[in-house]
């Protein structure tokens, strides 16, 4: 069981690294073509309430999935 947990975790570690590498590639290509630079990305602020809510929802749903084993199951919850 622990062996499998390690395997899944490491696969996730690797895939996250692959995703970060891809994101890094995209950012560098955008910067190379002067579309969006690193400073612009660092200085990003939500433009309006809709963007604020979208980002918040992204995080909340993600954390819900990550911590599903720590959150109590109540009737009416969507299947996990």
């Amino acid at each position, binding site marked *: 069981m*622990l*062996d499998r947990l*390690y*395997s899944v975790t*490491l696969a996730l*570690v*690797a895939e996250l*690294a692959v995703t970060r*590498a*891809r994101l890094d590639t995209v950012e560098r290509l955008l910067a190379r073509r002067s579309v969006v630079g690193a400073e612009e990305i660092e200085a990003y602020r939500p433009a309006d309430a809709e963007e604020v809510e979208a980002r918040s929802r992204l995080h909340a749903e993600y954390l819900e999935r990550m911590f599903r084993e720590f959150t109590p199951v109540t009737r009416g919850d969507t299947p996990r």
Partner: protein
Amino acid sequence: MERYTDPMAHPSPWTDIGRHDLLPAASHDEIARFDVIAQLNTLLAARLAPAVRASFEGRVSPAWAARHGHEPRDRQEVAEAMSSDPAWRSWSLVRRNTMEMRQQAGRSLVARQATALRDRAQALNEGAATLQLDPSLPVPRYVSAVDTHLMRGGYTAEQIEGDVSNPANYDAGFFATVGGMAGPWNDAAGRALAAWLQREHPDFQPQRIADLGCGLGHNTLPLRHAFPQAQIVAVDVAAPFLRYGHARARSLGIDDIEFRQQDATATSLPDASCDLVFTTMVLHETSAEALPRILAECKRLLRPGGLAIHLEQPPYRRFPPFEQFMRDWDGRWNNEPFWTSLHEMDLTERMARAGFRPGEIFETECRAPALVAADGRAEDFGRSPVWYAVGAWQTADETAAAIG
């Protein structure tokens, strides 16, 4: 290569691999997957392995001493003491997983282009007398029974007619496993042997060279560069690797090495026909039954003044028990069933049993010379890959006696 004892190295990105026509094409994410594996292996070496040693020295060994009245005396006692140690288990699980992930990354890479790779190999190999396959050759059980270092199907597996996907996986993935430390052509062992010969025996000019267990020939090619006049025969039992190796050599401009599908215990080469017979990281993948026969075959092939030499990892007797225990990991966890026996063996004694004169048998170290990048960029391939080597010279009277 001492992967877990080298905390300083930065692995080379996979994009630094040497290009040839047989190298599988890789997408951005496939490359990134290889690079993550190389980084994980660096983490294993630089961070996790030292934690294992610290745990052994600080906690496990003293606890064992308190219970038994002495510290663990040999590899087996270290293994028993460490079996439930969290640092060791983590290191071992991560290492096992990097090997599995490396195989999976390589398999998925080559599976999607197996037909294209096969066709490219066929085009390069078409009509060449230098590729000699023998479908009737029996595959030794030590090859057929094991997915060596977790390579699915082993060396001889073929998914399609004329398949070269396992050697393509081997070629692409080996670079990731060692973080490029064997150089862009994965040929550091061959370069190390060539450099040792040229430095230690500058007058030695072999006319015929045999590489036994050549695999995809990555360590054969440096001998071609070192000895342009020599006739070179590369022998292996695995047809996919010979097809790939022959085509790879051709695409790199080398078309005069003979790749023959034969067993290293019984090649078709005549008695006393070679000046240099060598293996690189092959003996540990054979068996107790085959090893003495391979050493004897080397003896049979040599002319007077010829050299048999084998590159391997050093024997365990050179290391303290803890290091032996760490080095033994591949035997149990990386599908290398003969690994432990080979490293417990005294190969000089085995060479003597094969008929070499004890005074002509020696042990040495072969180190790959540092590489200079073609584009002048500072290149960090040189993690000084270094091998233990055992060799023996053939004397004139011995040859006469053997043949007579």
